[in-house]
C-alpha cells in the first residue's frame, strides 16, 4: 500500500502547498523539524498526553444508548474528557512542542468554536509561549465563554471582522499574521487542512485516538468495529479515529458533515457532500463555492463545523471510497444532543452531537452483533448559550 501524502504533500490530486512564496520556507522548516523528531520528542509528548491531557481517554460502552436504539453495540471514545474538553489538545500539545524545538517564541491559531483556541492557549501557558488567537466576530458572540477562557490563559484574542466573520476568515487573518511574522511565529493550525505538512502533522498527532481505541477494544475482547462515526468540520477528530484502521478494510468510516438548515437551503457546511474541488487555505480539496470559484458563506449551529472546506485526506477518502460522508441538520444535531444527555448523562459538544444524530439514524440498519465506535470529540459546556437559545430558554 502506498503511503500518503506523497513527498510533495499530495493525497492523490488533493492537498499540496498553495501558499504565497513568503511562507514556503517556513513550511519546509516545519516539515524538516517534524521529520527529524526523535524518541525524546515522543517521550515528551507521551508524558504530557498521560499526565497533563489525561490520556488514554476511556472507551465507554454506552449501554443505555445501545439498549434504547436497539441495534449494534455502541462505544463512545471519550475525547470530551481530555483536559480543555476536546480532542483539539492532542494536536496543540504536539505543535507547541514543535514550536519550542524550532525556537519560535510566538504561536498563533485560528478558532471557530474556540476549542482549538483554548487548547492552543493552554499549551502556550504551559510551555511559556506567546499566544495570539484569531476568531471571527460572529463566533466571539456565540462562544463568549471560550473567549474568556483564552484570555484567562494569557492569550490575546483578535476579533476578525472581515468576510463572513467565522472560521474561514479567522484562518485568512491568521495566515496574514504568519506571512508578516513568519520568522518568530509558528502557526498552529487546528485541523487536518492547510498546506502540507499540516494535514499530515495534525493527523499524526490525532491518531492517538484511533490507536487507543484499537487497544481498548482488544482489552475488552471485542472484535474490530464495523463502523467508526465522527463529525467533520475540517476533519481532525475523524481522521484521528479513522487513520489507524486504514488497512482494516472491514471497518467502515463514516464522516458526518453539518447540514445546517438543510442542504437545499444553501445554509449549511456540507463541503464534501455538496461542494466541488477547489483551492483554499493552502490545499486542494472539496469546497463550498459558487460557479466562479468564490467561497460561499456557510452555516451550522456548531461553530466548529462552520467551515467551507475539509481536510484533503478526507477528500481523498471520498474519492477512493474508503470513507462515506453524510450530513445531519441543526435540528437533528440538537435531537442527538438531547438523546445522549438524557440517556447517558453525557452532554456532548454540538459538533459531536452531529455524530450521535447520525448514529441514531443509521442504527436501524445494524444488528446486535455489530460494533460501532462514535468519537465524542468534545464536551458541551461551551454550547450552553447556543442550546438554550435554540430551546427558547433565557439564561441569566
Amino acid at each position: 500500500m502506498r503511503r500518503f501524502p506523497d513527498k510533495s504533500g499530495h493525497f492523490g490530486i488533493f492537498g499540496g502547498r498553495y501558499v504565497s512564496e513568503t511562507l514556503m520556507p517556513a513550511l519546509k522548516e516545519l516539515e524538516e523539524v517534524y521529520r527529524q523528531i526523535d524518541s525524546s520528542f515522543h517521550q515528551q509528548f507521551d508524558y504530557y498526553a498521560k499526565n497533563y491531557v489525561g490520556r488514554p481517554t476511556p472507551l465507554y460502552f454506552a449501554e443505555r444508548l445501545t439498549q434504547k436504539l436497539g441495534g449494534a453495540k455502541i462505544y463512545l471514545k471519550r475525547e470530551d474528557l481530555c483536559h480543555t474538553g476536546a480532542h483539539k489538545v492532542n494536536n496543540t500539545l504536539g505543535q507547541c512542542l514543535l514550536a519550542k524545538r524550532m525556537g519560535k517564541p510566538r504561536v498563533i491559531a485560528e478558532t471557530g468554536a474556540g476549542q482549538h483556541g483554548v487548547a492552543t492557549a493552554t499549551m502556550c501557558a504551559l510551555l511559556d509561549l506567546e499566544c495570539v488567537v484569531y476568531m471571527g466576530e460572529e463566533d466571539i458572540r456565540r462562544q463568549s465563554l471560550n473567549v474568556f477562557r483564552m484570555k484567562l490563559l494569557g492569550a490575546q484574542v483578535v476579533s476578525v471582522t472581515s468576510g463572513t466573520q467565522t472560521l474561514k476568515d479567522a484562518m485568512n487573518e491568521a495566515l496574514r499574521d504568519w506571512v508578516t511574522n513568519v520568522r518568530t511565529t509558528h502557526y498552529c493550525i487546528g485541523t487536518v487542512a492547510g498546506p502540507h505538512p499540516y494535514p499530515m502533522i495534525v493527523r499524526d498527532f490525532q491518531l492517538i485516538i484511533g490507536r487507543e481505541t484499537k487497544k481498548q477494544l482488544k482489552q475488552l475482547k471485542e472484535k474490530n468495529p464495523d463502523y467508526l462515526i465522527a463529525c467533520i468540520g475540517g476533519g481532525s477528530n475523524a481522521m484521528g479515529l479513522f487513520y489507524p484502521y486504514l488497512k482494516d478494510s472491514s471497518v467502515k468510516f463514516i464522516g458526518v458533515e453539518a447540514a445546517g438548515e438543510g442542504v437545499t437551503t444553501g445554509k449549511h457546511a456540507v463541503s464534501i457532500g455538496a461542494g466541488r474541488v477547489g483551492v483554499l487555505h493552502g490545499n486542494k480539496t472539496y469546497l463550498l463555492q459558487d460557479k466562479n470559484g468564490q467561497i460561499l458563506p456557510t452555516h451550522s449551529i456548531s461553530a466548529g463545523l462552520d467551515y467551507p472546506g475539509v481536510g484533503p485526506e478526507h477528500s481523498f477518502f471520498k474519492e477512493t471510497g474508503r470513507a462515506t460522508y453524510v450530513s445531519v441538520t441543526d435540528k437533528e444535531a440538537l435531537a442527538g444532543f438531547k438523546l445522549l444527555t438524557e440517556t447517558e448523562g453525557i452532554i456532548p459538544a454540538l459538533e459531536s452531537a452531529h455524530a450521535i444524530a447520525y448514529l441514531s439514524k443509521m442504527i436501524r440498519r445494524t444488528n446486535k452483533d455489530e460494533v460501532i465506535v462514535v468519537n465524542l470529540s468534545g464536551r458541551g459546556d461551551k454550547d450552553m448559550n447556543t442550546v438554550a437559545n435554540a430551546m427558547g430558554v433565557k439564561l441569566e
Partner: protein
Amino acid sequence: MGSITKKFKELKRRGKKALIPFITAGDPSLTVTEKLVYTLEESGADLIELGIPFSDPMADGPVIQAASERALKNKVTLWDVLSLVSRIRKKSQVPLLLMGYYNPIFVMGLERFAVKAGQAGVDAVLIVDLPPEEAGDLRKELKKNKIDLVHLLAPTSDEERIKKAVRSASGFIYYVSLTGITGARLTVSDEIRQQIEKIRQSTALPVAVGFGISKPEQARHIADGADGVVVGSALVRIIASEGKKASLFPKAGRFISSLRKAIDR
C-alpha cells in the same frame, strides 16, 4: 518575445525603471477600471496589474481586501475581467498583468482560462497562492498561449527557492520587499538590495519590487536597485476614497505622475 520582456528591454535601453501600478478590476466598477487603465498609462505607468477579485484574499491587507469586496459586490467574475481586457485592447497596448488567487482560475479550467486570456490580450499572470511547485499545469497552458507566468520571491526565499522560481517564471520576477501582507509599512533596508543582487545571480529576468511602496521617495529608493516598482495599496486607497467621482482620474493620474518623476530622477 512577450510584450513585457520587450517593455523591460526598451526601458533598460533608455536607462529607466518600470512603474507598475496595481488596481482591482471592478473596483468601483468595470467602466471606471477601464478608464483608469488609460489614465495610469498616460500618467507614466509602463505595465498595469489588474487584480482578480476573490472572496478570501489571504495575502492582502485591509485596503486590497476591501477593494476585492467592493468588486465582488458588483458581481465581477473572472469572465468579466477577461472581457475588460478585451475592451482595453481596442484602445491601448499597455502590458497587462492579471494578479489573483488560484481558485477562480482552477474552477474556470486552466486550459480554458489560458486560451481566453490569450485571446483577450493578457500578457502575464501572477497567482499569489501558486508557488512554482504547484504551477506546472498552468505554466504549460499559459506558454501555449504566449502568456508569461510571474512568480513571487520574498525576503525569506533562500537560494534553492530563488532557483526554483526563476526556472519556472517568465516576464519578470516580483520581489516582495518585506515579509507581510500588501500595504504594510515599508522597512527600507539593505536586505532588499542584497536579495535583489542574489536573485540577479540566478537569472537575467528583470526584478520588480512591491508591497508597501506608497511615497515617491520610497519608489525612487527602491527603483535604484531594481528594474521596476509596484504600487498597489496607496493607489487603491485613492480609489476607495474617490469612488465613482470624476475627480478620481486626475487624482490617480497626479499620484502616478509624482511616482514617475521620482523614479526618473
